[in-house]
């Protein structure tokens, strides 16, 4: 961390000085690749996503700069250029993020900005990068709106959007023939919660025709105490209780609902819960169906790449990597692939933004979480495989294991190009390839 900071401080001061003499153009570094990394270091999303993502970034960047990543990523840094990260806190709202993005590009002269977990932040920063004609790699945020509402040339998202989380979840429940005559839901009252709820219910109506929605709760984000909500849910006693809660809210909800018998009355189904397994441990009721927004962590498929990340990260941080770490990794690896592809075309020079963009568009690359394919939004939006499973506490390892894991191919849970997610779901998920 320190090293990074000291490094870029000097550069920034230099470049700032340079710019004030009006030579902004010539201020970018030669043989290093300056990468702006934006992730939550404070605020409610820090522990669940922000910090695992940052740790992932630091691990991967270290490895790449040492040239000790497995094939096909063994080249040092990005095509020989050392990666020099500038890490920024995503906390503080879209207004602040827009400003910080400008600073990264215009003041700190980073070559590419990579990151963003909050959907609101992604929506806000995308058009700015497009205007500045600078490359922006969104690594995590959930909302499909980014590319469904507008077209971008300089903006990419290297992770699938939230649609597959809920479509996949329903497919999994169907596959494991989970009974769902009645359904209750609890989701946070902001975009992520509202959208996830809409997707899940829409998908449920397709695969579980006639499912009855009973209690449908939208507690405030960060409420922390769910006594009342739990009473309502237990009272309803539906077959299934669905939730897209995450982080501290999800943990609090699980902690408070278990002793009140909710897991006994209803099948709990969490669309994005892998990141709370390490902290919750035996507090997570067995048999809960969970997703990880990808084939990540304990649900990841064996591969040299995955071993490298899983073991390496665990060694470096004491805990195994969860979705955010994986998503950060696949973003950085994707960028590396693009840079090196561009360099192979332009004879090994540091590629220009436009060369980079051309290389990234429609790219495919292997990642610890499986194959990433930039298939949607004219090659700007990734699709990827996803996995779901049930929890089972393992007293020997003192951790939650995941059992009867099932994978779904990217084409099975993601809409085909040119179709709006919600329309695709409501239209019966036409053209899904589930082999």
């Amino acid at each position: 961390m320190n090293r990074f900071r000291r490094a870029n401080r000097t550069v920034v001061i230099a470049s700032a000085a340079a710019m004030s003499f009006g030579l902004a153009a010539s201020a970018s570094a030669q043989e290093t690749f300056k990468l702006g990394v934006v992730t939550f270091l404070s605020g409610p999303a820090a522990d669940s996503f922000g910090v695992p993502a940052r740790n992932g970034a630091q691990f991967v960047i270290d490895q790449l700069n040492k040239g000790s990543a497995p094939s096909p990523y063994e080249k040092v840094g990005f095509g020989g250029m050392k990666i020099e990260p500038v890490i920024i806190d995503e906390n503080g709202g879209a207004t602040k993020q827009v400003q910080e993005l400008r600073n990264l590009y215009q003041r700190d002269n980073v070559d590419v900005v990579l990151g963003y977990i909050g959907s609101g932040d992604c929506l806000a920063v995308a058009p700015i990068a497009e205007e500045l004609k600078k490359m922006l790699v969104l690594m995590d945020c959930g909302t499909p709106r980014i590319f469904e509402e507008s077209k971008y040339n300089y903006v990419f998202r290297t992770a699938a959007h939230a649609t597959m989380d809920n479509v996949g979840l329903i497919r999994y429940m169907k596959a494991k023939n989970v009974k769902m005559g009645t359904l209750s839901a609890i989701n946070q009252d902001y975009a992520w919660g509202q959208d996830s709820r809409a997707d899940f219910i829409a998908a449920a109506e397709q695969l579980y025709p006639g499912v009855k929605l009973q209690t449908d709760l939208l507690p405030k984000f960060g409420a922390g105490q769910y006594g009342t909500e739990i009473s309502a849910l237990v009272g309803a006693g539906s077959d299934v209780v669905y939730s897209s809660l995450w982080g501290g809210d999800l943990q609090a909800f699980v902690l408070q609902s278990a002793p009140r018998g909710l897991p006994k009355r209803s099948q709990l189904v969490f669309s994005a819960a892998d990141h709370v397994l390490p902290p919750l441990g035996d507090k997570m009721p067995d048999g809960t169906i969970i997703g990880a927004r990808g084939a990540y962590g304990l649900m990841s498929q064996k591969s040299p790449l995955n071993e490298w990340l899983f073991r390496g990260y665990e060694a470096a941080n004491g805990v195994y990597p969860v979705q955010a770490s994986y998503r950060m990794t696949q973003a950085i690896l994707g960028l590396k692939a693009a840079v090196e592809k561009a360099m192979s075309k332009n004879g090994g020079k540091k590629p220009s933004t436009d060369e980079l963009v051309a290389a990234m568009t429609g790219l495919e690359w292997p990642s610890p979480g499986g194959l990433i394919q930039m298939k949607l939004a004219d090659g700007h939006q990734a699709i990827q495989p996803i996995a779901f499973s049930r929890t089972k506490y393992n007293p020997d390892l003192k951790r939650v294991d995941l059992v009867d894991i099932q994978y779904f191919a990217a084409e099975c849970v993601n809409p085909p190009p040119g179709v709006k997610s919600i329309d695709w779901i409501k239209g019966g998920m036409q053209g899904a390839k589930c082999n």
Partner: protein
Amino acid sequence: MKKELHLPVMIGLVAAATLFGRVLPTWTLSLATIAASNALIALGIVVLARTGNVSFGQGLFFAAGGYGVALIANAWGLTDAVAQVVIGAACGGLLGLVIGPLIARYSGIFFGMLTLALSMVFYGALVKSTALGGSDGFNVGRPSLFGMSFTDPREADFMLYAVSVIVTGFAGIAATILFKSEFGLASLAVRENNLRVEYLGISANRVISINFVIAAVFAGASGAFALMAQRHIDPQFAYWTTSGEFVFIAVLAGNQSVAAVFVASMALELVRSFSNLYLPNTWQLVLGVFLLGVILFLPGGIGSLWIGKRRKRSTLATKEPLAEKGAAP
């Protein structure tokens, strides 16, 4: 005290500040734009504060302006920067006209809390309204000016900078004139003793309402700038911490100099962004310490740095016990 204000000089200053943008490095342009628009809304708070009332809900009008402009822009494709500022100001002002008279009779903490409550209700409504993108909000196109559209980033940034600096500058001049006017004097009188004001046959509520509307107009315009600068709007505009930041700037600046408001908001932006760059894990701590420092060592606000020891006339630095402000007859 009764020194004449030199209009030409002030206009000259605004012009100079605008042209200065030509030599500023690009990244500071958008920073300064945000700073200017924050200064504008903070100025409104200072105007209102002269009646002894501090609003912790300016985010309400900020958001009203922003959303108003954004919706109209997306509906009719109206992108002209100046037109958008006017619309924003109008939206803020109209809402102020509705709310001002209703809450003018409250004072002190109650005034603050009520404004905060109203803005939070609005926030709640926005988060609910999925048609407006809920908590994620939505984007708008880049602004144009008199039919010219700016594709070169630097030119676009400069255009925004110029418009915001000019508008804020003229708002500042207007405020200076207002402060020296009869009405400005009456506003101070309301702060000092609203009962006597009533006994003089002057309606304290009317005085407060008018100042309130002025503040709302500034807030609405400021919302328009924030929108133009970031092309994106979300309910955060109306959240209490947003409003808090504007009060923060107003107090930082003190009320002795209108220019101080601009300086304060620029300083805040710089501190925030550099501490976020170099101390990404502790920028809030830096911000807090900075704030404490200013409050402690510059009681009269940043303005007192160059205004010096003029007779105390501050709205935010003199204590009035709540007992007196609690129940106005």
